[in-house]
């Protein structure tokens, strides 16, 4: 096929359109009509050839009948002739037969001439005339002569016989020749039918191949292209053939559609991004404005009424200010952690050790909230490669979330196992309230929180997401209202990540 090198591959839909339109039009409709016509013409040709063969056969058949007739009549004449020579009877009958033969020979004159040649025909005709003449001579002398007649008979008999045999052998030769001609015709017709079938097979194979190439192959290519587009490669489909057909129109329409989808997708991503940024900005504002407001209120109070406060009260208020500064700066630090690009140090880590150390950090919280922990962690799991502090933070966030989802107590299942891809899979399952479907898609976005002020910054899950991604892992969430939530973290086993 006509593959185009990548350097000439058009990159915009307009370029692709232009490239398509530049190609000469050979429509599939035309191809189908051409295929049908060529098959039709081929069959017509074969029909004509067969018709010709049958006509020849028919002609030969008629000729064979005529010559057989001649031979038959000649036989009769011979019988009468014999009767005459033996018993002196039937001479006039023999003459009648001769004239019948003569007229039959004249009827088939053309065929006979073309078949046995003009010379042989003249000889035959001459023999016939001679035969007739000799018999007539006998007939004329019958009533008058006595002994002389006997002489005449004896003299003429061999001559008469000679002419008759000559005629007979010519006719028989013609019959024999024609019979073998018919036989040859039938065998060559048989062969012809097989040859015809052979050609027919070749032609249909060619046509089917051509149609397949121009219908099935483009469909297969379209399937390939659709797959590519579905995977997110929105570059237009480039021409692969040197001509245009119905598929070109389809591909051009698809290119337009792909472009539309691409534009819409970009818009959607942009909208999501803007929403995330909006959330982020409002979140930062909230997390910073509250401590700033507290600082402002305390400072104002200190400035306005400094004389009312003793040393101790002043210290307390200043400490409060300091705490609020810490609070604001920790928000900023969290934010920086979330966007941090620098690489923390990685080492080989035991996931069960990380989980148990995280649980011990949260022991108090778990007890206070009446949480029963079910730990299903295989001690023999292979190690993972990562940063201890970061992974601990991930599990801290996830377990904290699980605890907060069960304000009236519940069961927390922590399960670690190898999945079918030989990756570590850690499920944190709570029996809590569940996450509404409308929130599920944004829970990993920064500053998205459903918790009350001071309890959650909305950064926990987004920070966790960043850390897990940085470990070449995946984090997923499954939740149903009333049926609890499962956070699933997948981490590679002890493979040095690419950086």
């Amino acid at each position: 096929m006509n593959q185009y090198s990548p350097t000439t591959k058009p990159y915009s839909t307009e370029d692709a359109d232009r490239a398509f339109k530049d190609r000469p039009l050979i429509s599939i409709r035309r191809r189908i009509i051409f295929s049908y016509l060529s098959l039709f013409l081929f069959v017509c040709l074969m029909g004509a050839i067969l018709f010709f063969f049958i006509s020849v056969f028919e002609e030969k058949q008629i000729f064979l009948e005529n010559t057989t007739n001649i031979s038959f009549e000649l036989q009769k004449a011979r019988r009468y002739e014999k009767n005459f020579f033996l018993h002196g009877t039937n001479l006039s009958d023999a003459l009648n037969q001769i004239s019948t033969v003569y007229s039959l020979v004249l009827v088939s004159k053309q065929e006979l001439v073309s078949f046995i040649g003009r010379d042989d025909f003249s000889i035959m005709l001459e023999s016939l005339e001679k035969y007739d003449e000799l018999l007539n001579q006998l007939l004329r002398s019958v009533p008058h002569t006595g002994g002389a007649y006997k002489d005449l008979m004896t003299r003429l008999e061999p001559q008469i016989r000679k002419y008759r045999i000559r005629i007979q052998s010519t006719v028989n030769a013609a019959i024999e020749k024609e019979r073998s001609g018919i036989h040859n015709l039938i065998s060559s017709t048989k062969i012809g039918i097989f040859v015809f079938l052979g050609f027919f097979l070749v032609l249909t194979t060619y046509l089917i191949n051509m149609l397949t190439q121009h219908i099935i192959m483009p469909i297969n290519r379209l399937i390939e292209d659709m797959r590519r587009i579905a995977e997110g490669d929105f570059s237009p489909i480039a021409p692969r053939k040197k001509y245009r057909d119905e598929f070109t129109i389809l591909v051009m329409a698809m290119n337009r559609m792909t472009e539309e989808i691409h534009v819409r997708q970009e818009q959607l991503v942009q909208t999501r991004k803007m929403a995330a940024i909006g959330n982020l900005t409002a979140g930062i504002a909230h997390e910073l404005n509250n401590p700033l407001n507290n600082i402002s209120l305390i400072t104002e109070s200190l400035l306005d009424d400094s004389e009312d406060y003793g040393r101790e009260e002043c210290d307390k208020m200043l400490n409060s200010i300091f705490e609020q500064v810490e609070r604001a700066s920790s928000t900023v630090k969290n934010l920086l952690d979330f966007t941090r690009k620098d690489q923390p140090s990685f080492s080989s880590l035991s996931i069960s050790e990380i989980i148990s150390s995280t649980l011990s950090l949260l022991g108090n919280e778990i007890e206070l909230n009446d949480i029963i922990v079910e730990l299903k962690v295989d001690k023999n799991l292979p190690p993972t490669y990562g940063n201890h502090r970061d992974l601990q933070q991930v599990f801290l966030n996830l377990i904290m979330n699980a605890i907060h989802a069960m304000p009236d107590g519940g069961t927390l299942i922590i399960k670690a196992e190898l999945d079918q891809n030989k990756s570590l899979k850690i499920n944190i399952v709570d029996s809590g309230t569940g996450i509404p479907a409308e929130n599920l898609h944004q829970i990993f976005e920064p500053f998205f929180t459903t918790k009350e002020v001071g309890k959650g910054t909305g950064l926990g899950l987004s920070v966790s997401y960043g850390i897990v991604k940085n470990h070449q892992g995946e984090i997923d969430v499954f939740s149903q209202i009333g049926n609890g939530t499962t956070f699933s973290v997948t981490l590679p086993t002890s493979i040095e990540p690419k950086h």
Partner: protein
Amino acid sequence: MKKQYEIMVLDDEEIVCENLEKYFKKKDFIVEAFTESQKALDRLKEKKFDVVITDLKMAGPDGIDVLVYLKSQDTDTQVIIITGYADMESRLAAEYKNAFSYLLKPFKMDELERLVMKAAKKSR
């Protein structure tokens, strides 16, 4: 004798409650401060205030819930919303639900006091 205005302060930040209570008491208001919105709502059912100063984002019922509750009652209590959450949506919600004013944190005390005075006069 001039009647004292009665105001409620509701914010889950304790420092806000403390400072506002102190400030307005000094300015001769009768002040009740709450850090939990449910308790504040319960109190609003028992007692009529002239002005309620409330934070927007809180655990349980939030500032908008308090606003909606008050507007559903046959009372002219005015609501001032103070918030650090600077998104347009909540601001529009507050205005749509007839808050007296919407004040962004951090704010100046005299700014808030001016708003409270205006709101209190409107409530009488």
